[in-house]
């Protein structure tokens, strides 16, 4: 046991003295998490608000004067143009409206994510809706019919999600994603340095010549990777909580404007879990960490050099995207209990279910047992790799 701790201490000491690694694993998550969570929301919110408050140019062709007036009321400035498509493409105007044969055609740049043009299109649509409602109301009134005929009954939609699910909002998706991301990101530099790094630097032979069983060397290295993964994840969570608090205070007005009266779920949400829920998240994350660490060490030991190890481990990040994609569509699938035995997918699904307060004992039990089994298998493979002379002396 003492040897395991000594080896872990040595690995951590080496990392602590590497400023670059310290920055990427411990400092960066604290900075990047609030930026990732709140930056885009604030940026888009501000842009949207500015678009609403300022006046943009909209090209018009054959649009009647009454509609032009309606457009001006909606804070857009109609300008006569010859070619609407070209004018929008060339950004001479943010949108263009053409009236032809009694129909309106609206042009805008609607591809490529959130565009200012799309927001202006919405403004124009709003103006046209208002105009249309007024025309309909006038015509009904001329026939002696009230406008209530247009709305014979009201439709009210209520959110029937669980309280935890409602509160979680984006968290339900982001918590599994970030936990997995930072567990992997935090552990990778140590995993590479402790395995292929030792080979490349020529330090492994001295360690292997010491009277320490291989399994203890492996566990010592694994413990160091685990500690760094844990610290990196804690840094990310700290960044999220502290950064979230700072952002909420500094940009309260802007956030409120973006929220537009909706509940906090839109802005990332908040965890509303009981102690058992938190424990379940921690246990799931720890088991996942064991699995990913064993895989990283196994790959690192196989690699000849630092670069080779990185090239083996980086695709792991991509592999993780598959269950994340799966998670986005999980609501459209009828979740079977056996899904919770699939490696990586099970961890995502379990974390998602815990955050939403929908996890069952069978699902969690299956996730934990299977992840532990996969971690054991990966550790065994790492040990087998470590025993292979052609792997250890491959450099």
């Amino acid at each position, binding site marked *: 046991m*003492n*040897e395991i701790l*000594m080896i872990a*201490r*040595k690995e951590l*000491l*080496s990392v602590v*003295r*590497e400023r670059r690694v310290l920055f990427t694993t411990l400092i960066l998550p604290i900075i990047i998490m609030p930026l990732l969570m709140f930056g885009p929301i604030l940026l888009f919110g501000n842009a949207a608000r500015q678009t609403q408050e300022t006046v943009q140019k909209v090209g018009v062709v054959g649009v009647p004067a009454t509609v032009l007036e309606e457009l001006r009321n909606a804070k857009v400035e109609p300008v006569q143009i010859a070619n609407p498509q070209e004018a929008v493409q060339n950004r001479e105007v943010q949108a263009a409206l053409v009236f032809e044969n009694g129909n309106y055609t609206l042009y805008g740049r609607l591809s490529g994510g959130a565009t200012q043009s799309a927001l202006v299109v919405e403004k124009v649509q709003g103006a046209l809706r208002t105009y249309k409602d007024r025309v309909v109301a006038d015509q009904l009134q001329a026939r002696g019919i009230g406008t209530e005929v247009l709305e014979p009954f009201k439709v009210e939609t209520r959110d029937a999600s669980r309280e935890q699910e409602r509160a979680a909002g984006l968290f339900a998706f982001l918590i599994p994603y970030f936990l997995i991301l930072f567990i992997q990101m935090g552990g990778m530099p140590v995993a590479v340095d402790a395995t292929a790094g030792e080979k490349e*630097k*020529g*330090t492994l*032979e*001295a360690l*292997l*010549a*010491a*009277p*320490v*069983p291989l399994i203890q060397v492996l566990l010592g290295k694994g413990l160091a990777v685990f500690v760094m993964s844990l610290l990196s994840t804690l840094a990310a969570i700290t960044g999220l909580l502290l950064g979230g608090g700072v952002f909420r205070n500094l940009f309260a007005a802007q956030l409120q404007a973006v929220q537009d009266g909706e509940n906090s779920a839109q802005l990332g949400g908040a965890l509303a879990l009981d102690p058992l829920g938190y424990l379940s998240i921690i246990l799931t994350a720890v088991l996942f960490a064991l699995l990913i660490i064993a895989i990283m060490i196994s790959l690192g030991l196989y690699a000849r050099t630092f670069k080779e190890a990185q090239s083996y481990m980086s695709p792991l990040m991509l592999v993780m995207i598959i269950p994340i994609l799966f998670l986005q569509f999980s609501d459209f699938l009828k979740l079977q209990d056996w899904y919770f035995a699939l490696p990586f997918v099970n961890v995502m699904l379990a974390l998602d279910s815990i955050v939403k307060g929908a996890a069952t004992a069978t699902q969690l039990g299956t996730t934990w047992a299977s992840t532990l089994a996969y971690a054991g298998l990966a550790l065994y493979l790492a040990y087998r790799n470590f025993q292979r*002379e*052609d792997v*250890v*002396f491959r450099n």
Partner: protein
Amino acid sequence: MIEVSNLQKTYRKFEAVKGISFAVQAGEVYGLLGPNGAGKTTTLRVLATLLKPTGGSAQVAGFDVVRQSLEVRRSLGIVNGGMKVYDKLTGYEVLDFFGSFYDLWGPKLKERIAWAAELLHLEQPVLKKQVKDMSTGMQQKIVIARAILHQPQVLLLDEATAGLDVFARRALLDFVKQYAELDKTLVYSTHVMSEAEEVCDRVGFIDKGSLVFEGSLKEALELGSGNLERAFIRRLEEAA
């Protein structure tokens, strides 16, 4: 102290060591001499239990290298030219780390570090530096200090002077002689004949995995009319 009998090591189809036998006694420096790729490093790695032999047997300090690998590792130290220690750690931290595997702690560890430092002419302030800030010679001294901290009965040195400047090389050769005087067993592997001539009591010429000559330094010199290099070349040519 070291008994090697018909030792073989094959990597897939390549026979790196083809049944060599030799013995080294306490207080003796045995020179394992051969060109690059002759099988020296493989032989020493088998003795250090880093590699498993595919045939024959070897005993170090009375322990079998296959069945009693941990006991063997407690009884020996190994240094090779490419061996490095952790560059982010200080010299003292490196020795503290490796010392802990031999139950060296506290005052006992300090005493051993002082002993090794004196033997290797390592000044205490150097030990406070991170290894990356030391010269190559100093780094090599830390590698050696790590290997002798537990005062092993057997010390294996494989191309240990590779990359060292003339001063560091001289210090290492002096150390080899001094360590042998402590009644320790040393195997000194090199392809530099002048070094072997200076420190070895007995030598073995190894080529293409086979031991083509074994005898005292005097016998080897006689074979080459007073020149070890000539003896080495002559013996290898005869064997070919």
